[in-house]
């Protein structure tokens, strides 16, 4: 009993943990997917913009001779102004490769012109292979002006050569909205995801708890039934052992010894005595077996008296009342009688064991369609909160009555317990037989 809440708490905890783990997994997957999609889109936008700029400035760059110094900034400014106006490009730089260094020879921001850095063979390789190389904009000194306004940028490199054959690099900075894209998508999906899983969990937890309770109950029932079975078997064994006692076994063992001797030296008187002993044993064994069909010789009333004899002998007042017509011509069939007797034994035993009763009334009356057995005690009733029909003996008994087309109900209060069990006789004429 005390294990139940622990089990339920553990169950809820496990559900919540599973829900949290699934949610976290799905969210992580979603973020990764969105980030990849947004990056691909940002790269596409950057590549398009950079390619357009390259097309626009290619003639100018290819014709330039930069051996002397700077590019014709004004011409380039005019060529690319449209991109800045449309907001498609954030910055443009043209680098000239000069041995081990590269130097800015043009930018729309004049402060940068003349900046230098070392030549990157890796970038050169990629440019040869891919044509357009797209990169994140690093937070370094070189990009101090691009980073300044806080916009998210991607940069694209495209290779040129000037009129003298000197390699040039066109670098185009394009504003992208990758972070904003991911954030806005998640803003839609996360509540749906979390809410959905939450709702699913809320729906499943009570069902699981009900299921777990039912399983625990079934398990208790099963254990109870096993216990009850063991107890019944044990009772039956004791009953047999009591009745068999040692007599039959010892008589048989002694007879076997004596017969062994008598085989070589027959003694009629001794043999007759042994024969009598064996007959007695046979009678004892038959009595044992016949105990299950006592009605062959006894009326229901006598059989009930027999069934409660143990309780009476132990000091209980047990009153047996059988409707007169039942002991007259309306005798129940053997199976019905056996059920009534078994029920009487079990119910009287219950009353003795659990009810602290002083007086137990056993009544059998005839119903139009069968018989009703009542066992009424003046004990303390079932303890509050305990289901009167939860005992396994009682439950099995109820099953037996239901199988016989009847039912069994229990009512219990401070003044005692009443169990009424009805058994139907399918063939109506059997009642009047």
């Amino acid at each position: 009993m005390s294990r139940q809440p622990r089990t339920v708490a553990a169950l809820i905890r496990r559900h919540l943990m599973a829900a949290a783990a699934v949610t976290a997994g799905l969210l992580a997957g979603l973020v990764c997917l969105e980030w990849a999609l947004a990056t691909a889109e940002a790269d596409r936008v950057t590549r398009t913009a950079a390619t357009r700029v390259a097309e626009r400035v290619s003639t100018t760059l290819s014709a330039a001779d930069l051996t002397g110094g700077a590019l014709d900034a004004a011409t380039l400014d005019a060529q690319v102004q449209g991109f800045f106006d449309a907001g498609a490009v954030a910055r443009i730089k043209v680098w000239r490769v000069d041995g081990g260094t590269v130097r800015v020879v043009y930018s729309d921001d004049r402060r940068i012109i003349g900046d230098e850095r070392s030549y990157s063979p890796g970038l050169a390789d990629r440019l040869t292979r891919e044509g357009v190389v797209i990169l994140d904009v690093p937070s370094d000194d070189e990009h101090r002006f691009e980073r300044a306004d806080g916009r998210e940028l991607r940069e694209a490199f495209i290779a040129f050569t000037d009129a003298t054959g000197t390699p040039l690099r066109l670098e185009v900075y394009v504003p992208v909205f990758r972070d904003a894209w991911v954030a806005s998508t998640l803003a839609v999906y996360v509540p749906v995801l979390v809410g959905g899983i939450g709702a699913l969990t809320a729906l499943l937890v009570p069902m699981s708890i009900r299921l777990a309770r039912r399983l625990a109950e079934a398990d208790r029932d099963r254990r109870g039934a096993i216990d009850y079975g063991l107890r019944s078997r044990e009772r039956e064994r004791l009953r047999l052992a009591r009745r068999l006692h040692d007599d039959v076994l010892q008589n048989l063992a002694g007879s076997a010894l004596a017969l062994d001797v008598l085989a070589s030296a027959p003694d009629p008187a001794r043999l007759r005595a042994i024969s009598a002993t064996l007959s007695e044993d046979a009678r004892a064994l038959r009595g044992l077996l016949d105990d299950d069909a006592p009605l062959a010789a006894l009326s229901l009333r006598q059989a009930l008296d027999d069934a409660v004899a143990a309780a009476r002998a132990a000091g209980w007042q047990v009153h047996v009342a059988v409707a007169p017509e039942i002991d007259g011509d309306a005798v129940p069939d053997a199976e019905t009688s056996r059920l009534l007797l078994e029920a009487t034994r079990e119910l009287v035993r219950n009353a003795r064991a659990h009810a602290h009763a002083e007086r137990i009334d056993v009544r059998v009356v005839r119903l139009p369609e069968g018989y009703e057995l009542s066992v009424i005690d003046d004990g303390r009733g079932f303890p509050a909160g305990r289901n009167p029909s939860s005992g396994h003996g009682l439950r099995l008994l109820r099953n037996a009555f239901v199988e016989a087309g009847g039912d069994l109900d229990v009512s219990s209060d401070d003044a005692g317990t009443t169990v009424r069990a009805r058994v139907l006789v399918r063939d109506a004429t059997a009642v009047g037989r």
Partner: protein
Amino acid sequence: MSPTAPAATACRVLVVDDHRVFGDLLAFALDATADTVCVGTAATLDEGVRKADALVPDVIVLDVGIGDDDGLTAVPTLCRLLPSARIIVLTAHPRAAGADRAFADGAAGYLAKDTRLDDLITAIRTATPRRPALTPGLARTPLDDLTPRERDVLTLLCEGSRPADIARALGLSTHTVRDHVKTLRAVLRAGSQLEVVARARALGMDDGGRP
């Protein structure tokens, strides 16, 4: 027909058994067999000890369940009283543990009551504490290896006592009794206290002497 006259060297047997029919039939069988003679029968342990003292038999055939007494308790007494007599324990419910006890106390045989007459006579003639006769096939069960204390607890459990009652009855703490019950559950591989009782019974445990 008269029984065979006892030879001068006939083995003199005293039968101690409370079951009249069995005792008489065994006495008859012994008298009818050459070389054995039943010199007396006794239906209680006291009577058995008295007759043993008076008749000085060569062999005492001793039942285990004699009324409410345990025949095995008389083995040491009889051995002291008649050091030369050999004691054959004859029981309706042979147990390995009973055999151990009987032989430890000096019995010369431990046989089931359904033993064949030939084997019983052979045992009466030849068995000694050094070469005892034992009913074959007594299975050893976990019950045989219980400590006396565990056996007490098990006996009370089988009588339907609860651990608290057992603790009171044996003068132990409830905790100790629960430990014993736990051991019993492990030894008998039983899932519950009730199953302990059922398993013990299935293995031949009885309420205290006889079933």
